[in-house]
Structures are given as structure tokens and as C-alpha cells.
């Protein structure tokens, strides 16, 4: 209990995320309607007992769509983040630590990738592999690697520059050991906080690509897509966009809280 008191952030974050995960997994039991069942005669109904969050333009129950939407949104986000984080960390570590020409080579490729429009990447992937959420995940995921790699690299540069690392190298300690013992713990915090940012970007950028018309299953419940669609009817039915918007905000908030909770408390507490 005292552990919980010492880190309220962690508790709240895990609590919220746990709840969201539970709702997503339990969607078939929690949802009140079929999220894809269109009943146009019931379009744009206000929230009520039967339709907790009202209905959208095609008469679908917004509550059920939000509940099911968590699966898709979170699933895509995690996949996308995974595609970004793993190579991002590897490249950032290698570039920051090894330095010299490896740093130059890696960062050049990263810069080239940064300059490459993710729109074009998405279109290319959609072309070859067809429309789909996985393709968008790859497009957004790959597009996010340079950013993450750069942040990791900066943190590594900073961590590497401390005297004891030099000393360790001087006495011939192996790079892997130095990395593991000194560098990685030192960079963990900015990495985690940026991982939270990356996850948020993943959610939002994939929604942006769908907003621009780059495909995917248009009828599927997905918070980002619901927000984009909701814009078209937000004057007549604001709940269509507000509900997924709040779900999205809550999720990202919890993710960030989790990232922050790992940080040590400030010294003047």
C-alpha cells in the first residue's frame, strides 16, 4: 500500500489502461449493439438509454463502436509503435554509442527517411498490399523511426559523455557491458517519455492517413476514423465525434502518465 502511495501516477495509469484493455477485450459482452449494423432510419439520435452515446450518420450505435474501437485503435497503435521502437532504439543506440562513420551512415539514412513523405509511403504500401490497417501501421511505423532514433541518439550522446563511461572504455570494458550497465539505464527515462509520444503519434497519424483517404476498412469501428467522420456531422450530432475523442484522449493520457510514473521523483520533494 505504501508503494502505491509513493507512486500514485503509476496506480492511476495502470488502472485506466487496465480498464481500457478490459473493455476492449470484453467488447462483445459490453457493447449494446452490433457496431457495424447500419440503421439509417435511426441516424443522429441523441444519447439515450438505448444508445448511450447516441447514433451516427448511418444509425450505428456510437457506444458500441467506441467499445469495439478500442481493439482496433490500440492494436494498430501497438503494432505501429513496435515497428517504430525496436529499430529506433537499435539504430539510436548504435549511432550514439559507436559514433564515427556508423553514426554518419545511420543518421543519413534516417534523414532520408524523414524527408520521405509518409503519404507516399502509405500509398506505395496500399498499392502493393491493398488497403488495410496493417499497411497503414507499417507506413506510420516506418515513418516514425527516424524521429525516435534521433531522440535515442541524443540521449545516448549525453549519457556517454560522462567521465565514468570514458574511464570504463579506457580500462577496456566491453561496449556491451558499458551499454547495459551505464548507458541504457541513463537513457531509459527520456526514451520512455518519448515512447509515449510515439504511441500517441501512431494513433493520430494513422487516423490522419485515413482522413486523407488512404484506405482501410471504412466501416470498421476505429476511434481515429470515427473522429474524422464525426467532423462531417458535428454540427448536427456532436456526440459522434466527442465520444471517440474522449476515449482517445483518455488512453493517451494514461499512456503518458505511465511514462511519467517511471521517472524518479524530483529531488526537492
Amino acid at each position, binding site marked *: 500500500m505504501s508503494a502505491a502511495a509513493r507512486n500514485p501516477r503509476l496506480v492511476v495509469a495502470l488502472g485506466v489502461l487496465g480498464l481500457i484493455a478490459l473493455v476492449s477485450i470484453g467488447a462483445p459482452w459490453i457493447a449494446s449493439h452490433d457496431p457495424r449494423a447500419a440503421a439509417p432510419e435511426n441516424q443522429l439520435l441523441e444519447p439515450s438509454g438505448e444508445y448511450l452515446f447516441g447514433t451516427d450518420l448511418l444509425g450505428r450505435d456510437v457506444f458500441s463502436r467506441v467499445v469495439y474501437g478500442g481493439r482496433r485503435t490500440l492494436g494498430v497503435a501497438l503494432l505501429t509503435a513496435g515497428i517504430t521502437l525496436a529499430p529506433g532504439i537499435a539504430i539510436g543506440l548504435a549511432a550514439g554509442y559507436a559514433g564515427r562513420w556508423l553514426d554518419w551512415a545511420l543518421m543519413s539514412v534516417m534523414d532520408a527517411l*524523414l524527408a520521405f513523405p509518409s*503519404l*507516399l509511403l502509405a500509398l*506505395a504500401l496500399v498499392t502493393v498490399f491493398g488497403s488495410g490497417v496493417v499497411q497503414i501501421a507499417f507506413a506510420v511505423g516506418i515513418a516514425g523511426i527516424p524521429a525516435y532514433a534521433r531522440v535515442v541518439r541524443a540521449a545516448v550522446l549525453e549519457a556517454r559523455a560522462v567521465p565514468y563511461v570514458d574511464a570504463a572504455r579506457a580500462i577496456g570494458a566491453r561496449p556491451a557491458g558499458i551499454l547495459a550497465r551505464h548507458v541504457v539505464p541513463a537513457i531509459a527515462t527520456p526514451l*520512455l517519455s518519448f515512447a509515449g509520444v510515439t504511441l500517441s503519434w501512431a494513433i493520430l497519424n494513422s487516423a490522419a492517413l485515413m482522413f486523407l483517404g488512404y484506405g482501410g476498412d471504412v466501416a470498421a469501428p476505429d476511434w481515429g476514423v470515427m473522429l474524422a467522420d464525426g467532423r462531417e456531422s458535428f454540427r448536427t450530432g456532436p456526440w459522434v465525434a466527442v465520444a471517440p475523442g474522449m476515449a482517445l484522449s483518455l488512453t493517451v493520457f494514461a499512456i503518458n502518465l505511465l511514462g511519467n510514473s517511471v521517472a524518479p521523483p524530483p529531488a526537492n520533494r
Partner: protein
Amino acid sequence: MIGYSIKRLGSALFVAWLALTLAFVALRWVPGDAVDATLARGGASPGEVAARRDMLGLNDPVWRQYGDYVMGLVRGDWGESLVTEQPVAEIIRQNIGATSALSGAALLIAVTLGVVLGIAASLGRWRPVRYGAEGLASLALSTPVYWTSTLAIYVFSIVLGLLPGVGGEGIRYLILPAAVLGFHTAGSIAQVTAGSIRDAMGQGFVRTARAKGLPELDVLDHVLRVGMLPVVAVVALQLGFLLSGTVITEIIFVRRGLGRVLLTAIDNRDYPVVEGLVVLSALTYSAINMLADVAYRVIDPRVRMEE
């Protein structure tokens, strides 16, 4: 110093070339070309379509198209739009001012707001301040730009009537899009700043310095110095994004800009325009990174960069 500069320049050109080649391949991989987007769509006969492709050089083997384009670039010829046949350099010139203005204003707001929020979230004396700042940063990160933009236009332009709507030019029309973009960008800056500062505060030298009785301001100064490195990285990144990725904001606020030009060019398979923008984007990133590296050295001379 000169050697270093030359190396950086070489680097920048190499990156530009790499990005260009990637874009070249991707564009030709994707189905359809500029003639499909324009002529064929209007119902032209297959003969006319083929003739036009010939004229535009789209029937040439890919390696030749590539060679021609790169040689052209080296000569300073950025090519012409396949659709409007306007010189690409002119297209860029017409739109870069608007994009720079929006990005610059947004970045200013973003850095100010972001750093302040980040400092408040990590060093704030009272808990509501810290949590409030954290919450605001989260909010900035958690909604898509297209949504806050629509909401902002509705609230500030229709409901409150404070600001003009969309589609005009001048500073008054810049406020809302810059504010929205800036707000969103501030989120990630705030996050990284806060995390970084917290991390720095937890390090040993802070306790040591305090124990020695050093003035708080000096300690703070040192903490900020150390904490800023990843922040500089994020800011540099964001600037890059802003310069090349403001498509949605430009569409919604009906502003001229390179983002919209890029989207239209991709839709129309307008190869020279897309490639030109990619090259421009690569060179911009390189320039920003150089500035960032200079900033790293200024902030923390312990960081040893490649000589």
C-alpha cells in the same frame, strides 16, 4: 572547421540523393501516372494517351528517367510539373513563404508553450500546477489536428466571432492555424522536457551541488543545460515536420503551402513536383540538424561530436 563544413555539406547532398532515389522508386511503383490522372480521366483515346506519355518521357526506361532527372538537378533544373508544366522551382517559390510563416509561428508557440509546460510539470512547486501542466501536454498530444482545427474554427470564428474564418491571408488568418499547430507540437516538447529535467534532477551532482551550498539558480541552470539535449532533438524534429507536414492544417484552413502542393502532386502522380519537394525536405532537415548539432555543443561542451 572548413573540412567539417565540407563534410556536412557532402552529408546533406548524400541524404538528399538517398531520399530522392527512394521517392523515385516509390512513385513509379505506385500504379497510374500523371497522364492517367488528367487525360485518361477526361475520356481521351488510347492513342492520345500514349502520345502524351511519349511527349512527357514517361515511356522511357526508368533508369533513363532517373538519370535525366538527376543530371537536371545537378544543373539546377528542378523540372516542370507533368500536369501544369509550371517549373517546379517556381511552384516552390510561390508556396514556401506561406509554409515558412505558418511553421515559424507554430514553432514559436510550440517551443514557448512546450518548454514552459515541461518545466512546470517537472519542477512546479505545487501539485495542481504540475498535474495541470502534465494534463495539458497530454491533451495536446491526444487529439488529431483535424479535429481541434474544426473545433477551433467553430468556437473562435462562428460562436465567438473573435477571429476571421478560413481562407484569407495576412496575420489575422495565421493566428488560429498557428495556434492549433503550435499547441499540438507543444505536447511532445513538453513531454520530453519534463522527462529530461526530472531525470537530470535525480542525478547525483544535484545533491552534491546543493550540499555544497551552491545557489539554487546555478543548480537549475545546470539541470536545464543537461536536460535540454533531447529537447533540442525533439524541437529540431518538429521543425522538420512542420515544414513538410502541414498538409491537413493547410487543407482545413485553406492556406497556400507546400503540404497541399505535395498532396495534390501525389494524387496526380506529378513526379517532378514530388521529387523536388522531397529533395527540398531532405536539404531542410540536414540544415536543421546542423543547427541542432551546433546547439548541442553550445549547451553541453562535454558532448564530443565528430571532428
